[in-house]
């Protein structure tokens, strides 16, 4: 048995359900505005191995309770948008939705991390027709949603891959250069948004 124990079976089902909710938000928006809100989304259940590793790293007991309640990203969905404004529109629509409650929210776009990382993080609490670890049925589960632009996503995935290369000779220089690249991509994101706004204005 892995760290999720019997709850491991329902996590993919909850993941699918929330993914469908998000897709539905996009479809409704498309019908109304003839434009999509995101380019693509990636949904995953954190593997039991990385969840155990995370519990240890964070100093939590390696238990099912930690995996489902202390860590709130066993179920995670990444939404990759074309434009910055789409992220905020999507966040608003999630906030209005009846199927979830927002328990935590971090705007790393307005407050970029020191290394240049930009993204919008939401932790949702969803009510589902499955038993949870506290014995409630319908139960409550946490879902993490990360929203970012294509540029933010490409930076984050490359930075992630380089972070684990320990044989880099000049890590400070590389960190500085990665930060500069993040700030350049952020600049492009805003220029793209501005161009879209200018097109709208001139319509």
């Amino acid at each position, binding site marked *: 048995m892995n760290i999720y124990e019997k709850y491991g079976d329902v996590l993919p089902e909850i993941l699918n359900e929330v993914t469908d909710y998000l897709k539905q938000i996009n479809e409704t928006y498309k019908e109304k505005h003839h434009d999509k809100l995101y380019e693509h989304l990636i949904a995953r259940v954190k593997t039991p191995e990385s969840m155990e590793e995370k519990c240890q790293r964070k100093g939590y007991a390696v238990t099912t309770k930690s995996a489902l309640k202390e860590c709130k990203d066993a179920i995670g969905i990444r939404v990759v948008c074309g434009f910055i404004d789409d992220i905020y529109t999507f966040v608003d629509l999630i906030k209005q939705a009846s199927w979830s409650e927002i328990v935590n929210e971090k705007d790393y776009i307005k*407050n*970029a991390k020191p290394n240049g990382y930009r993204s919008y993080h939401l932790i949702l609490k969803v009510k589902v027709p499955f038993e949870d670890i506290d014995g409630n049925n319908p139960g409550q589960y946490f879902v993490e949603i990360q929203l970012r632009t294509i540029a933010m996503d490409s930076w984050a995935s490359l930075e992630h891959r380089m972070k684990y290369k320990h044989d880099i000779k000049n890590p400070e220089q590389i960190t500085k250069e990665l930060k500069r690249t993040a*700030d350049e991509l952020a600049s492009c994101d805003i220029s793209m948004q501005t161009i879209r706004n200018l097109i709208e204005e001139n319509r």
Partner: protein
Amino acid sequence: MKILLAEDEPQLQHVLKKAMQSVGYQVDAVNNGKSAVKAAKENIYDVMIFDVMMPEMTGIEAMKEIRKTGDSTHVIILTAMSEIDDKVTGLDAGADDYMTKPFSLKELLARLRSKERREDDYNHKLVEYGSVKLDTDQQELVSHNSIRLPSKETELMKLFMLNADKQLSTHEIRQKIWGDEENDEIVWIYISYLRGKLAAINADIQIVGKKDGEFCLTKK
């Protein structure tokens, strides 16, 4: 500063070289125009000082050769003749300044200091207004967050920050930043970019104004 000196009169060359070295400049001295062209091809200089009348190639000819390669280094011409025409010829051929022989060393060194000031103090590599800092070398705009600007946006932001609280017309802005390369339409597009970027770093300053009108950088 690194200086290239071309002077064929050995004694004057020696005196000028010593004087400039004594105040900390690095000096390469040659005695004709041809050698000057060769030195300019091989090294980077901050200032070039050329005598006009020299064997093999005059200072003016050498300067023209050097300018042809796209070199825009500050050139001071030393002319023996105080004729107005010589000064005009020299300046029109690409010189930035001239001095008439005989001249005082004191004056030459003062001109070099003035040129240095223009490079450093007046170049405003770091500009600040409100909570916002602009590093024009790094093209970095910093407040709560940081962001990198493309070159034209950096120039425009610098113009606004050095002229904060002044009303700048669309036409004036276009002339200063783009000259005749673009028409006035470009100004609104770039101001829109900068507004987005100021918002992204959570700046406490803003560019006020409407399309095609006057714009002013103010504190919020």
